[in-house]
């Protein structure tokens, strides 16, 4: 408590003023709070009307949701397929290396020298050397169940010549398209010229595989474009169909809308339920499409895995399941919302 000093009246005045100010601020706050509550109330009511309308015209609802589901499935399939193809091509490119063959009698020292020369090339990511004996062991190991091969081998051994396999250096590149430096060293370096096994072409098979991979990549690009084109087309189709569904819903509820307007419903109440309805198509379609999509993945990925690389895609789809589901819902919501907004703007003029 403070004592009243002689200049009391002004102080009391200030206090009164402050009290009035505080009161006004409180009233303002209450008003804001009231407005906020009212907005939330309206939002939940509009949602409820939308839900109600959704279940009112079952056939239109089912048709609109089905089209949206197909659209979302196409998007899903396109994304998954392009991820799978991408992964496969990437894996193949990584596997692809250049094999350089040297005469069987090349010594380990020489091989080390040759390896060293390759290592210093910037585009070379790794070099793997194996001499004639190693190659022989590998060949025996790889073919021990092949009776004919083993017989031929022992025949060669008994003839006294032994089996002479060339030594090999495997070179992996960072950029598989840029072979210039390696080619240059193979054709021009003296040591390489001396020891290289001219009976075995160095680069042909690589080139062929390279070409195949490039062709695959081209096909993939086309496939991707076709996929995304189809997805785009279906997005447009579903927008049109949902647009039409909402348009019909608007026409069939014309009287009701006029009546709502007559008793003072504003735009949120008039348009809101239609937007909610269309967004609901999107959400339900997303849930159905995600379920179907994942079921299909579970069904087909394992057997696909025998032919192409699926590991990365599979892991991603499992790890990010909720993200994928959310993305599908978001796409569905956006498609539904866009179509409904177009329809409402066109047919529900204020």
């Amino acid at each position, binding site marked *: 408590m403070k004592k009243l000093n002689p200049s009391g009246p002004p102080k009391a005045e200030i206090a009164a003023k402050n009290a009035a100010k505080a009161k006004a601020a409180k009233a303002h706050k209450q008003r804001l709070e009231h407005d906020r509550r009212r907005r939330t109330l309206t939002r939940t009511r509009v949602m409820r009307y939308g839900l109600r309308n959704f279940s009112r015209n079952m056939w239109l609802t089912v048709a609109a949701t089905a089209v949206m589901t197909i659209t979302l499935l196409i998007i899903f399939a396109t994304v998954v397929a392009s991820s799978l193809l991408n992964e496969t091509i990437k894996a193949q490119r990584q596997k692809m290396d250049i094999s350089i063959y040297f005469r069987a009698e090349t010594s380990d020292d020489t091989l080390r020298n040759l390896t060293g020369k390759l290592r210093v090339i910037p585009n070379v990511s790794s070099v793997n050397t194996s001499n004639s004996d190693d190659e022989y062991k590998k060949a025996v190991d790889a073919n021990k169940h092949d009776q004919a091969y083993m017989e031929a081998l022992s025949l060669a051994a008994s003839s006294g010549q032994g089996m002479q396999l060339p030594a090999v250096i495997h070179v992996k590149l960072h950029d598989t398209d840029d072979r210039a430096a390696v080619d240059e060293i193979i054709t021009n370096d003296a040591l390489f010229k001396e020891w290289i096994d001219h009976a075995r072409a160095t680069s042909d098979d690589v080139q062929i595989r390279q070409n195949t991979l490039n062709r695959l990549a081209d096909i993939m690009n086309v496939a991707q474009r076709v996929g995304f084109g189809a997805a785009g087309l279906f997005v447009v189709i579903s927008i049109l169909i949902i647009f039409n569904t909402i348009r019909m819903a608007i026409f069939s509820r014309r009287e009701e809308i006029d*009546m*709502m*307007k*007559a*008793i003072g419903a504003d735009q949120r109440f008039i348009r809101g339920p239609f937007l909610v309805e269309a967004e609901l198509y999107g959400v339900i379609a997303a849930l159905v499409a995600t379920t179907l999509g994942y079921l299909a993945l579970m069904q087909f990925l394992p057997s696909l895995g025998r032919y192409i690389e699926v590991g990365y895609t599979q892991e991603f789809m499992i790890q990010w399941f909720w993200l994928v589901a959310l993305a599908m819902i978001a796409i569905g919501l956006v498609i539904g919302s866009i179509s409904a907004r177009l329809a409402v703007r066109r047919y529900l003029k204020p």
Partner: protein
Amino acid sequence: MLLASRRAEPFQSAYFYVKIDIVILLDRVTKTYAKALQPALDGVSLHIQAREFAIIVGASGAGKSTLLKMLTREEKPHDGKIVVGGIDYDTLDDRDIPLLRRKIGVVFQDFKLLPNRTVYENVALSLEISGHSNKEIRQNVPRILELVGLRGKEKSFPRQLSGGERQRVAIARAMVRQPKILVADEPTGNLDAHNTWEIVKLLLKINKFGTTVVLITHSQEIVNRLNTRVITISEGKVVSDVPHGGFRQ
């Protein structure tokens, strides 16, 4: 009787100072529909005071419903001034029309009820639209249904009701927001004599509670028995306006 409006300035109209009790004011209002040869309203001037019970009569096509549409801003006049409950329509933003309509109760000949909603829901809708809380809805809807004599019918759908009962629902829906003004456009047009009279009695009761009632009607009997103000419209003009009118056409 001031209407809350975000943009409209309630005291802007000069008329407002003339007589503070005037809730409906039309000054030389003219309306011609597109492609119409003659105006539907031709220089109509009217004052209706607070708590008044006014009957508007006139032949079919005279312009009575057009007059109602002027009040609810369903149509806009080409000329003239309209001030309702202190709101000058010249300063009324289109976005505020819903707010205006929540302040005026309107009842139609064809009821305009939502067929797939119960009596209770039809009345509650009115409060939902104007943003009343669920608690207010729970309190006010049963009360107003009681007032119009529809207790026990809450769960019925409009198709399960008689014409008179349907019109009571419509009146309940209009009145549940406690508007200062109630306009009824031929509310008894589809009803038999008994129900007509029940509805008129209900309107009188509402008027007694303090609401200004404007009743548009064709019925000679109502006019003659009510002995209240009668405004006669003919070919878009007010041809007579008498405090205790008999029917004449």
